[in-house]
C-alpha cells in the first residue's frame, strides 16, 4: 500500500535519500574539469599554448619553492610553538598560549601563509585547526558557533581514518549550527581525543586581528582561556600592523589571560626583491620583461598594495599576453626546443616574425640584394637563418644578465646610490635607455675614479668574484651556458690583468714631470708675453692647465682610468645595451606591450564611467552619436549622457529648472520643431528628464539638496 494513502489530508515528509549521492558528484566533476582547461581544444593544441604552459609551470613551481623556503623559518618556529604548547598545557593555569604573527599590511596575501601552516599541522597530526575570519564573527555567538563547528567538522583528517568515516558522517549530520557550544565541543573532545596519547592541540587562527570587533574578541579570549584547563587551545593571531594593536585592543584583564609570543615574518618588500632576483631575473628562463613592464609591475607593488600575490598574477598576465600574440612566440623557450619548433612554423608565423620591429635593421644590414629578397620572401631560407638569430638573442640576454651582476656589485654600494642599489633598479635603468648617457652614470663613474687604491682593488676583486660565482652557479648548467661563460671569462681575464696593473701602480707622480716644472715656468713667462688678446690668453691658460693635469697624473690614476674605460667599452657598452639596440628578433623574448596590461589589470572605474557618459559612442559604436570633439552635445545621445554633460558645466549646486531647460533645448536642437512657448514643457520631455536625473543620482553623481529647494548638489569634482 502506498504509504501516503490515508484517511486524513496531510503532508508527508520523506528524508531525501539523494543528498548523499549529490554530495559525491560535484567532487567527481571537479576532478574531470581539473585535467582539461577552460579553453577549448582549438587553443590548447596550439604550439604557443604548450610553450606558455611549460614556461608558466616552471616559473610557478620556482616561485612556490622560493616562498616556501623564505617562510620556512617562521613556520617552523610557529609549528614548534603550537605543538609544544598544545602538549604542555596540561596544568590548570587558565593561561591561553598565543602566538602573534606580525604579517605585514596586506592581509589577503597572508591567508595563504596560514593555509600552509594549517597543512603543516595536519601533516604532523598535531592539531585540529580552525581559521576564524572576522567576517564570520560579528557577534560572540557567531564566533563560538563558527569555531566549534569548524573544529568538529574538520574534513582533512578523514583521509587517514577511513574506518571512522561512517561514524563521522553521522556525527556531522547531527551537527547543527545552534548546537555548537563549548559544552558540545568539550564532550566531542573527550570522546575523540580523551586519551592522553591521542591529545591534540586545538589551534584557532585569527588571520585578520585588526578587523575583529574588540568586545567580541575580548569575550572570546576570556572564554577560551577559561576552557584551557579542559581543552588545549592555542590561539594564533595574524597582526598586520604592530604589537601595539594587540595591547590597544585587549584591556589588562584580558591580556593577563594570554601568554603571548611574537613571531616576525619576512617583510613584503624583501620577499618581492627575493622573488625578482631569483626568479624573474634568473637566466634560466627565456621570457623577459622589458624595463617599462618590469617597472610598471613593481610600481603597483611598492606604491599601491604590497601584494606579492598580486604581483605574481600581474606577471602571469604579461606572460599570457606575450604568448597569445601568435605561434611565432612559441619560439620563446630554451634553444633546443626552439629548434624543434621552427619546423612547425607556418607561413603566417613567418610573416609575424618579419613584421617585428627589430627585423628591419637586420634586413637593412644585409648588403646582398638576393639574400634580402630571400629573407623577405622565402620561408625556408629564413627558417634556416633563424637558429643563428635565436642563438644570438639568447646569448645576448645571458651576457646582459652576467654584466648586470658585475655592474650591480660595482655601483650598488656607492654613496647615495645614484643608479639604485638593487638589481631590479639597475635592470630597469639599463634596459630603458642607453645607460652611459645618463647623468647618474657619469656621477657613478666619477665616484669610482675618486676611490682610494685599496678600496677600488677590493671592490673590483669582489665584483669579479661575484660574477665568476654567478657564472659557475647559474649560467654553467644552462644550455648555451658554456658559450656565454667563455665570452665572459675572457672579459674577466683581461679585467684581472688590468686590475693587476692598478695594484702594482704607484701613487708617485712621474719624475720627469717634476723636473720639467721649472722649464715650463720659464716657458710660461715667455709664452704669455706673446698673447694678443684677453680671449686668447684664457684659451691658452685652459689648455696649459689641462696639460699640467695630464702630466701630473700618477701611474695609479692612469691605470685606474684604463680599467674604467675598459669596463665601460667591453662590459657596459657591449652588453648592457638598452632594448632598442638588442639583437634582431628580441621581441620574441621580451614582453613590452605595457599599455594593454595597464588597461586590463588596473581598473579605473571613474574614468570608465566618464568615458561612457561623455562619449557613449566609445562603447556603443553606434552611428548616430559620433562626436567630433569631446564637449559636443548631440540630441541623439542617451538622455543620461546629455544630462551628465550638462551637469559638468555647472557649479556645485545645480538648479533643476535651468537644467531642464538646457536639456530641452538640446533635445529640440535635433528636432528643428517650431517654437513652443517657454512655459509649457512637453510632459514627455519632463518625464525623460526626471528619469535621467534619478539615474544620475543612482550613479552617485548628484544628490538632492536639502538646504536649497529645487537644487541638486554635485558629488564629484
Amino acid at each position, binding site marked *: 500500500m502506498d504509504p501516503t494513502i490515508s484517511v486524513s489530508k496531510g503532508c508527508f515528509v520523506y528524508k531525501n535519500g539523494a543528498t548523499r549521492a549529490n554530495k559525491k558528484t560535484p567532487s567527481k566533476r571537479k576532478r574531470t574539469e581539473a585535467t582539461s582547461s577552460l579553453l577549448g581544444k582549438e587553443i590548447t593544441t596550439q604550439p604557443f599554448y604548450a610553450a606558455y604552459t611549460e614556461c608558466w609551470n616552471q616559473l610557478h613551481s620556482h616561485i612556490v619553492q622560493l616562498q616556501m623556503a623564505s617562510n620556512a623559518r617562521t613556520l617552523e618556529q610557529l609549528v614548534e610553538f603550537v605543538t609544544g604548547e598544545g602538549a604542555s598545557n596540561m596544568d590548570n593555569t587558565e593561561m591561553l598560549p598565543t602566538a602573534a604573527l606580525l604579517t605585514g*599590511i596586506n592581509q589577503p596575501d597572508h591567508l595563504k601563509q596560514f593555509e600552509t601552516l594549517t597543512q603543516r599541522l595536519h601533516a604532523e597530526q598535531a592539531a585540529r585547526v580552525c581559521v576564524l575570519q572576522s567576517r564570520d564573527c560579528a557577534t560572540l555567538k557567531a564566533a563560538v558557533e563558527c569555531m566549534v563547528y569548524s573544529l568538529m567538522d574538520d574534513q582533512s583528517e578523514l583521509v587517514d581514518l577511513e574506518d571512522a568515516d561512517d561514524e563521522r558522517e553521522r556525527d556531522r549530520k547531527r551537527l547543527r549550527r545552534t548546537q555548537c557550544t563549548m*559544552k558540545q565541543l568539550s564532550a566531542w573532545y573527550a570522546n575523540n581525543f580523551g586519551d592522553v596519547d591521542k591529545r591534540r592541540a586545538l589551534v584557532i587562527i585569527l588571520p585578520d586581528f585588526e*578587523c575583529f570587533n574588540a568586545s567580541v574578541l575580548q569575550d572570546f579570549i*576570556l572564554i577560551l582561556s577559561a576552557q584551557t584547563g579542559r581543552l588545549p587551545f592555542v590561539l594564533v593571531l595574524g597582526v*598586520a600592523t604592530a604589537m601595539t594593536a594587540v595591547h590597544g585592543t585587549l584591556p589588562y584583564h584580558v591580556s*593577563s589571560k594570554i601568554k*603571548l609570543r*611574537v613571531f616576525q615574518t619576512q617583510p613584503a618588500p624583501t620577499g618581492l626583491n627575493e622573488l625578482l632576483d631569483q626568479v624573474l631575473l634568473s637566466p634560466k628562463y627565456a621570457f623577459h620583461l622589458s624595463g617599462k613592464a618590469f617597472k610598471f609591475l613593481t610600481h603597483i607593488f611598492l606604491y599601491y598594495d604590497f601584494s606579492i600575490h598580486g604581483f605574481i598574477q600581474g606577471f602571469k598576465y604579461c606572460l599570457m599576453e606575450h604568448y597569445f600574440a601568435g605561434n611565432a612566440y612559441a619560439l620563446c623557450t630554451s634553444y633546443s626546443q626552439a629548434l624543434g619548433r621552427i619546423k612547425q612554423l607556418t607561413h603566417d608565423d613567418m610573416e609575424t616574425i618579419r613584421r617585428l620591429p627589430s627585423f628591419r635593421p637586420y634586413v637593412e644590414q644585409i648588403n646582398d640584394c638576393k639574400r634580402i629578397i630571400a629573407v623577405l620572401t622565402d620561408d625556408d631560407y629564413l627558417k634556416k637563418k633563424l637558429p643563428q638569430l635565436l642563438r644570438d638573442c639568447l646569448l645576448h640576454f645571458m651576457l646582459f644578465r652576467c654584466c648586470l651582476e658585475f655592474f650591480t656589485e660595482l655601483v650598488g654600494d656607492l654613496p647615495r646610490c645614484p643608479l639604485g642599489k638593487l638589481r631590479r633598479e639597475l635592470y630597469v635603468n639599463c634596459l630603458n635607455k642607453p645607460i652611459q648617457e645618463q647623468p647618474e652614470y657619469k656621477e657613478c663613474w666619477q665616484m669610482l675614479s675618486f676611490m682610494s687604491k685599496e678600496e677600488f682593488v677590493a671592490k673590483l676583486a669582489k665584483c669579479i668574484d661575484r660574477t665568476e660565482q654567478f657564472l659557475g652557479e647559474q649560467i654553467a648548467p644552462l644550455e648555451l651556458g658554456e658559450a656565454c661563460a667563455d665570452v665572459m671569462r675572457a672579459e674577466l681575464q683581461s679585467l684581472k690583468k688590468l686590475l693587476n696593473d692598478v695594484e702594482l701602480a704607484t701613487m708617485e707622480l712621474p719624475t720627469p714631470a717634476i723636473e720639467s716644472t721649472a722649464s715650463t715656468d720659464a716657458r710660461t713667462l715667455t709664452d704669455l708675453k706673446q698673447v694678443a688678446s684677453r680671449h686668447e690668453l684664457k684659451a691658452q691658460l685652459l689648455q696649459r692647465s689641462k696639460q699640467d693635469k695630464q702630466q701630473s697624473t700618477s701611474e695609479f690614476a692612469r691605470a685606474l682610468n684604463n680599467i674604467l674605460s675598459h669596463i665601460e667599452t667591453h662590459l657596459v657598452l657591449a652588453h648592457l645595451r638598452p632594448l632598442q639596440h638588442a639583437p634582431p628578433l628580441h621581441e620574441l623574448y621580451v614582453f613590452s606591450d605595457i599599455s594593454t596590461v595597464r588597461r586590463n589589470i588596473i581598473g579605473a572605474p571613474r574614468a570608465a564611467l566618464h568615458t561612457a557618459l561623455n562619449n557613449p559612442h566609445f562603447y556603443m559604436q553606434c552611428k548616430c552619436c559620433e562626436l567630433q570633439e569631446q564637449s559636443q552635445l548631440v540630441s541623439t545621445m542617451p538622455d543620461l549622457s546629455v544630462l551628465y554633460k550638462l551637469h559638468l558645466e555647472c557649479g556645485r549646486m545645480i538648479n533643476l529648472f535651468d537644467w531642464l531647460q538646457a536639456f530641452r533645448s538640446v533635445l529640440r536642437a535635433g528636432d528643428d520643431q517650431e517654437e513652443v512657448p517657454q512655459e509649457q514643457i512637453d510632459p514627455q520631455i519632463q518625464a525623460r528628464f526626471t528619469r535621467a536625473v534619478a539615474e544620475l543620482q543612482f550613479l552617485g553623481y548628484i544628490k538632492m539638496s536639502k538646504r536649497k529647494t529645487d537644487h541638486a548638489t554635485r558629488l564629484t569634482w
Partner: protein
Amino acid sequence: MERICAALEPQFPCRETVITTLSELIGDCNEGYPPAIYIYGHSGTGKTSLTKAFLQQCEQQQKVCTAQLNAVECYTTKILLENVLDALAQKEQQLGASPLRADNMLEFVEQLRRWHGSSARGFLIAIDNAERLRDMDANVLPVLLRLQQLTSLNLCVLLLSQLPFEKYYNKTGLSEVISLHLPQYNKAEALRILSSDFEQMRHQMLQQQQLTGDGPRLALCEQALTQEFYSNYLNLFLSVFYKACRDVPELRLTARKCFAIYMQPVLDGSVECTDVSRLWRHIAGPLRSALTQIYMRIEKPLGEPNIEDQSVRKLAQSLELPYYGKFLLIAAFLASHNSPKQDKRLFVKQHGKQRKRMQTVNARAKNAEKMSTTLGPKSFSIDRLLAIFYAILEEKVGLTCNLLSQISTLVHLKLLSFVSGEQNIMDGSAKLQCTVGLEFVIYIGKVVGFNVRQYLCDFM
C-alpha cells in the same frame, strides 16, 4: 562548618573574616540558606578562587550540589541555564542519562523542582562576572535572586562581581541580597601572601641549580635563600609595584619572574646576600622595566633583542605601508585636523592674499590654546580626502581601483575609522576619521619626504 573554615584558612591568608561569614551563611546544609549572596571586590582579591574552594569543601563534606560558572561564557540565556543544570546534575544523575534541556526560565525552574525528593540537602550556584547578567534577558537576574522562593529548594545563588550591588538596581526593583565585600589587600597583607611563595621558590631555584650541576653555586644558593632574604626582596619589589598594581596574582607572577634577576649577582658571588643596598641597585632597573610590561605577558624566546622599546618613531618607521598609502594617511590626518574652510588656503597655489582683520587676529589669540591637533580628529568625506591627496602629491596618478582600495586597507588596519555612513559609501555621505597622532604622522611624512607641519593651520 568548622572543618570548612579550618581547611580554607591556611589556603587564603588575610581572608579569615570573609571565610567565617560565608560559612556562617552557607556552611551548614541542614540550616536554611539565604536566597542570594553578592560577593564583590576588585580583581585579584580572591573572589573566584575563594568561592571555588569553598564550594568544593561544601561538596566534599556535605551532601550539597554545586555549580560554578562564568557569565562571560553564557552569551545566551539557554546556555546559562543548561550549564547550571548540567553542573548540578552531575552528582544527582548517573552518566548516560540524556542531557537536561531548558529553553527558558520556566523550564529551568520546573527542572529544579523535580529534584525535591532527591538526596541532596542543598544547592549552591556561583556565577562569576555577574555584571553580565544585567545585559541578558530581563528576567534572568530577578529570577536568580528569588530562585529559592520559586523552587522551594534549599538553594543559594552566589553572585561574584567587581561592582557594588547598587549598580544593579533597575526600574522593577530587585529583592535584597546579602552583600559581602572583599577589600583590597594592604601592603602588609600583600607581603604576607607573597611570602607564602617562599618554599616553592626555594625549591625551584635549587632544582635549577642542580640541573646545571654547578656545585659551589648550589651551595651558595642554598645558603643565601632564607626566608629573610626573600622577604627583603619582596619589600623592595612591593615598594616599586604596590603603587601601580594591587592584583595579587599579577604581583606574584612578576615577583617570581624578577627574583631570578635578583638572585643573579648573589649566585655570581659579586654581591653578599646581606648587602641590600647593592642588591637594590642591581634590581632597580629590571624592576622598572618589568613595571611597564605588567599584564602584557609577552614571552620572549631566549637570545632575541628586546622589542618592547616602542617609541612612536620606531613604530612609524617599522610600519610598512605602500607609498601612496602613506600619502593617503597623511592626507587623512590633514583632513581630520584642518577645517574645510582652510583647505583653499593650504592646498591651492594661488589662493590670494589673506586679509588680516582685527577680529580674526583677536579670535585667533583667544583660541591659541584650542589647537585643532590637540582637540582630536574631525570627520571628513572620502571626496575631501582624495582632493587633499591629489593636492599634496606632486606626481599625477590615476584614480584607480588600486588607489581606492588603499582607503579600505587603511580602515582595516584601524588607521582610519568610519564615523558614520559606513553602509552608504556610494552616495558620498560616509565620513571617515584619522586615528593616528601627530607625532606618528610626522615620522611617516619624514619617510616620504613630506613636511606635515607646513600643512597644518595650527602651525601657520
